[in-house]
């Protein structure tokens, strides 16, 4: 009787462990999908002008802020939840696309022929400016996501997945497929790939490099806006500082996948999300609770350091010599 009970207990414990593992997988994939979408913005810009746009994370933040504000305006007017979110997201995408274009035009294009450090510093400057503009407009208090979409949970192999998580994963995958299609199947995509391989030769074939670069910024910024809405609704708040940590992590994801490589950014994003979720889930068990899940943010940067030491070209990246 006693032995039987112990067995049942052990089986229950294993089941619980398995459930926790699956739950962390679900959380990791959700987070990873968002990282992947943001990482695409870094990698596309790097691929085409070899610039790490450190202000990209702020576009995510602005996207969330604009969308949250609009939802807050539309909902009291009696606009139903789904159209409100849709309109707000489209407006956020437009706002971020304009901002991305302005950024390229004002802060990076004048420095196109300058030493590489100059646009990098300019990018950090843009990031600080955007953060403080957001602070002026939206104040230092977090904006709460209006509770217009009711969170519903579904059982999934012992873990739970919410409708918001499903939405994030589905939208991210759809956007990544759309982008891959754009880059590998359309006239604009061919021009983008040609410009990133040899901008001068592309120009000699009629490609207006400035236009292609501007469009790259616009596409990356629109993706960032959607990522902002997704991550904001996942955590329920948006804050003027939310872009920097998220941006840095997405940058780690882009490096992990191989900066400049589009499938690499997608892979790197999802892997980083998984590493982070599993790491945060198990760090307490492995360190006897000396470190808790509040160390979650450490993992992304550990991955960054490991990649830079052992495989600087990233998982799918080309050897640097190939680019020259």
């Amino acid at each position, binding site marked *: 009787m006693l032995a039987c009970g112990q067995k049942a207990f052990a089986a229950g414990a294993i089941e619980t462990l398995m459930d926790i593992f699956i739950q962390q997988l679900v959380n990791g994939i959700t987070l990873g999908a968002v990282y992947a979408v943001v990482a695409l913005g870094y990698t596309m810009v790097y691929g085409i002008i070899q610039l790490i746009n450190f202000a990209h994370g702020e576009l995510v933040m602005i996207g969330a802020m604009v969308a949250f504000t609009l939802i807050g305006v539309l909902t009291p007017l009696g606009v139903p939840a789904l159209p409100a979110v849709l309109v707000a997201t489209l407006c956020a995408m437009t706002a971020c696309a304009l901002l991305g274009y302005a950024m390229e035009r004002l802060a990076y294009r004048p420095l196109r022929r300058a030493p590489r450090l100059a646009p990098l510093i300019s990018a950090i400057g843009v990031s600080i400016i955007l953060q403080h503009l957001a602070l002026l407009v939206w104040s230092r208090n977090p904006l709460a996501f209006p509770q217009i979409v009711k969170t519903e949970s579904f059982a999934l192999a012992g873990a739970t997945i919410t409708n918001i998580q499903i939405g994030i994963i589905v939208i991210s995958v759809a956007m990544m497929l759309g982008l891959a299609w*754009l880059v590998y199947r*359309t006239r604009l995509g*061919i021009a983008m790939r040609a410009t990133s*391989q040899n901008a001068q030769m*592309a120009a*000699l*074939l*009629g490609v207006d*490099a400035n236009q292609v670069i501007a469009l790259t910024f616009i596409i990356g910024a629109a993706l960032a806006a959607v990522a902002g809405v997704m991550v904001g609704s996942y955590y329920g708040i948006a804050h003027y500082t939310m872009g920097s940590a998220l941006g840095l992590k997405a940058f780690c994801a882009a490096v992990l996948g191989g900066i400049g490589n589009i499938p690499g950014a997608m892979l790197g994003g999802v892997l980083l999300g998984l590493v982070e979720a599993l790491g945060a889930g198990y760090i307490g068990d492995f360190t006897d609770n000396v470190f808790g899940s509040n160390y979650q943010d450490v993992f992304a940067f550990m991955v960054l350091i490991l990649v830079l030491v052992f495989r600087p070209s990233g998982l799918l990246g080309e050897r640097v010599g*190939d680019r020259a």
Partner: protein
Amino acid sequence: MSDLLTCSGIGKSFGGIQALAEVGFSITPGEIYGLIGPNGAGKTTLFNVLTGIYAPDRGSLVFAGAQLAGLKPHEIVRRGIARTFQNIRLFANISALENVMIGRHARTRAGLLGAILRNAATRTEEADSESRALALLDLVGLRERANDAAGNLAYGDQRRLEIARALATEPRLLALDEPAAGMNASETRGLRELLLEIRGRGITLLLIEHDMRLVMNLCDRLLVLDYGVTIAEGAPAAIQGDARVIEAYLGAPAEA
């Protein structure tokens, strides 16, 4: 008949080096015009000025009645000048077909909105681009290799692919920088046929070439540059006997 291209008084210096001092010539529509001269004579610099990579320090370039100086490369290619390079500059990581389709960029319009909306105009344009690109691959004998990465093609095939890509821009003037470089005799014969076929389609050719047999057989007129200065211009037969040209290539005769 009015000239297709008229260059006059072209000068270009880099620091203290005068690459082009005073170059003038005109090309009439439909001819094959050769540009020869010893290494360092300024031939490639002239191509770079012509295609907008360098702005000339002085002089004028009139193409089909319009001034080219000051235009950017992508604007010049839209006016109808395409070129190839002495050292091959294909996009090595993408397919031969896509390399040619990039050349269609100058003649197509679809942008971001077209790509997203997939409207009828965009779909027609894409289908048209692909069929024209395939036809050009056919012309240069690379139809079978359409889906191979350009970097994996044999050297001679890469040279011909570059020509197909330049033709995709629908040029009126095709400028070729040493197209026969590195080719063996039979490949060079094939190239000659191809260039005549291209001229047969009404495209004017401007050719830098060191293979003198090819130049003498193919070109209607020649321009000889030395140290950035025109030293002779005329029909191949006249150039062959020109004392200054012989001197530029072989050095001055020893004083007796």
